[in-house]
């Protein structure tokens, strides 16, 4: 079986879980004899290509004179009006808009510069433009390569997936690692992104969310037909534990939060729980490892609560620094408001750290030895952290059994399930 896969990031150049999950999944699928062509907007050349063929989107020439591409562009209807890109709409609506704004497709073509486009591969100001161009890349690739099924990861790649589907006629599978709804919350979604997500899922033959939590969001908030939505939980790669010679420099226990300092991750609840603990036990230090739009507000709150001397902001950590952070931690906390899955607690458990996670996360669905609390329930959160810090048998149990659990969450199992879903989809 050959799969054409569209991603946006690939290790080591990642900013979040998407790249890690994509990588793990492809390795797992390859173990089950699936051939994968993995397309990223920008490849750096240092990606692990032992298992998977990486195609650099920036290297793919798009022949805009090509009739098929033109037709696709017409159908796709990405209109750039000023700096706003309108998301996927019906051909009829497109006609209407096209008349309304008096722009022609030909004029549109002028905006596209050259045959090859150098993607930034990041999440910058002209992200929407990059998403649109990626769609054309997808169309070109679909013309050139041979494959049985298309698999697109998250909204950034959905247009490319749709393009490939329409050009090749092969079925499209879309993978939901994170939803705009989760990222921004009720009433605050970016409608461009939301609509792209919805369009991709509607066009797809199969939707794979990473948890039942996300599956419910997809069905209820995006209105997608439940019969084509099948959960496949993420997994985690086992790693060789290197002997990082880390000695804790402080005598206190260390409780860690690692993630973006933004609404979705619930950092403020971590701060409030910290206060409750420090009132009873000052032999603890709290670490917030990450960066984000809530950073300043959190720093102010910590000062207001007069716990700044026990609180540390490290900024964004990656690579080896993350592993070092885990080695120094006694408890890891993930108070996410809405987490489609949540790979970081698995990484913590893999590093022998007991975890406290929010019930509103996908990863809670697959773990037993993790303390689960409602994200808003600061009392329970503090109680759980305190218990893990003070009752040895509890933390020992979590560390030992948690490690075993994580070792069983193999990408091969997830990949097996996905391979079966591919087969079912192809048979329809």
């Amino acid at each position: 079986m050959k799969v054409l896969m569209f991603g946006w990031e690939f290790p080591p150049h990642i900013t979040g879980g998407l790249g890690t999950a994509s990588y793990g999944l492809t390795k797992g699928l390859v173990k089950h004899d699936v051939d994968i062509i993995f397309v990223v907007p920008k490849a750096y050349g240092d990606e692990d290509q032992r298992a998977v063929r990486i195609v650099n989107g920036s290297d793919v020439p798009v022949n805009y004179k090509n009739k098929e591409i033109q037709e696709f562009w017409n159908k796709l209807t990405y209109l750039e009006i000023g700096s706003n890109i309108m998301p996927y709409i019906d051909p009829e609506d497109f006609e209407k808009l096209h008349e309304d704004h008096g722009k022609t497709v030909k004029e549109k073509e002028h905006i596209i510069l050259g045959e090859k486009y150098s993607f930034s591969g990041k999440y910058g100001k002209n992200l929407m433009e990059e998403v649109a161009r990626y769609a054309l890349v997808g169309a070109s690739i679909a013309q050139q390569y041979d494959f049985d099924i298309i698999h697109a990861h998250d909204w950034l790649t959905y247009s490319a997936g749709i393009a490939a589907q329409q050009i090749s006629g092969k079925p499209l599978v879309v993978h939901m690692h994170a939803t705009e709804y989760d990222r921004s919350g009720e009433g605050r979604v970016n409608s461009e992104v939301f609509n792209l997500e919805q369009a991709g899922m509607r066009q797809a033959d199969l939707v794979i969310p990473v948890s039942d939590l996300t599956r419910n969001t997809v069905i209820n908030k995006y209105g997608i037909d439940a019969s084509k939505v099948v959960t496949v939980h993420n997994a985690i790669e086992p790693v060789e534990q290197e002997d990082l010679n880390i000695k804790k420099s402080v005598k206190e226990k260390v409780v860690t939060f690692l993630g973006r300092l933004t609404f979705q991750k619930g950092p403020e609840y971590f701060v409030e729980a910290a206060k409750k603990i420090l009132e009873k036990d000052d032999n603890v230090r709290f670490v917030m490892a990450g960066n984000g739009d809530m950073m300043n507000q959190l720093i102010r709150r910590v000062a207001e609560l007069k716990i700044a001397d026990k609180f540390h902001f490290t900024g964004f950590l990656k690579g080896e620094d993350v592993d070092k952070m885990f080695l120094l931690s006694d408890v890891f906390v993930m108070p996410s408001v809405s987490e489609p899955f949540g790979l970081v607690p698995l990484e913590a458990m893999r590093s022998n750290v007991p975890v406290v996670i929010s019930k509103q996360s996908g990863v809670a669905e697959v773990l037993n030895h993790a303390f689960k609390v409602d994200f808003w329930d600061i009392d329970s959160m503090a109680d759980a952290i305190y218990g893990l810090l003070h009752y040895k048998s509890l933390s020992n149990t979590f560390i030992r059994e948690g490690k075993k659990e994580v070792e069983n969450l193999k990408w091969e199992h997830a990949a097996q399930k996905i391979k079966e879903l591919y087969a079912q989809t192809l048979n329809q």
Partner: protein
Amino acid sequence: MRSISFYFQVHQPYRIKKYRFFNMGNDHHYFDEYLNKTIIQRVAEKNYLPMNQLLLELIQKHGKDFKVSFSITGMAIEQFEQYAPEVLDSFKRLADTGNVEFLAETYAHSLVSLNDAGEFKRQVKMHQKKIKEVFGVKTVTFRNTELVYSDDIGAAVADMGFKTMLTEGAKHILGWKSPNYLYKHPYKKTLKLLLKNFSLSDDIAFRFSSQDWGEWPLTTDKYLHWLKQIKPEEEVVNLYMDYETFGEHQWAESGIFDFMRVLPGKIIEDGEFTFNTPSELSKKLKPVSDLHVPNPISWADEERDLSAWLGNEMQDEAFEKLNSMIPQMQKCKDKQLNADWLKLQTSDHFYYMCTKWFADGDVHEYFNPYASPFEAFINYMNVLSDFKIRLDAYSQKSKKKVKSIKK
């Protein structure tokens, strides 16, 4: 003639409320009164009252031909006194018939028999006293918490003057032997042992309403037939179960009450079996051999051992912390501390911390106030920490008193 012996366990723990670490040092009220009261009253309505009534009617109908035995824990009696005195009255009416034997156990339904002989004896004496007070009877037969038994425990019980003790007919102890005989303790010759026939007991207690069961529905004719199929030389069938079987574990709709209403009559009419109490059996039968139980057994789960309460690290830590306070408690005269101490000993608290069945749940979930064994553990440990703080403060104070008196 062969015998059938019905024994019912009546127990309710004092369940702990949600107790956070930041309550330690300030809040000394540990128990969820509202929850415990609600449960007592509900079980009274669904189980205790209707089943007691049913047994009373059977005794009135069959007279001396129908007998049963109970063990009612100190924890249950106290809660009946507080929340459902009519239940205690109905048990008293049963006591007055003379057809019911009441057994002795630890007052707190605790696991203390495993670790402290002195505390074990104290709790048993306390229970005997309570039973005498409430029902006017002296207890001569013993059953330990959840039928936990070992040679050592049996020896301690024999030394307290008991003649008969109940325990589980566990396969790994019996081997090829049958539970349907009277046995005796290997070196305390005065102690006779009666073993639960778990197969026939569990048919009623667990499988009765299970439609997946090959033998569902269980009729009285079928059950009597099974009883009669037991080898003719086997002398007794001990049917031991949780009293909550009748109306709670097995709901009224399952037909359990109708079954029990008819079964004794059918057995009596058939004539092959008589109903006897444990102390009667101890006199009537001759022990067929010694029973060696080097490691503790119980009536819990498939394993029939202690793993439901003391199988994992957390249970061990909690149990150890609890036991570490025994020396101090022996010198403690404070009424409130003693009352709380007993309530914290109940085996249920450890039961809730069991991690054996993450997938299942089932019977262990029944009335379990916790969502996970970890929450149960943290909650209990927080409470123990506060208790320890109070106990230490008391010990300090009484040391000072002693010092000042000595001066």
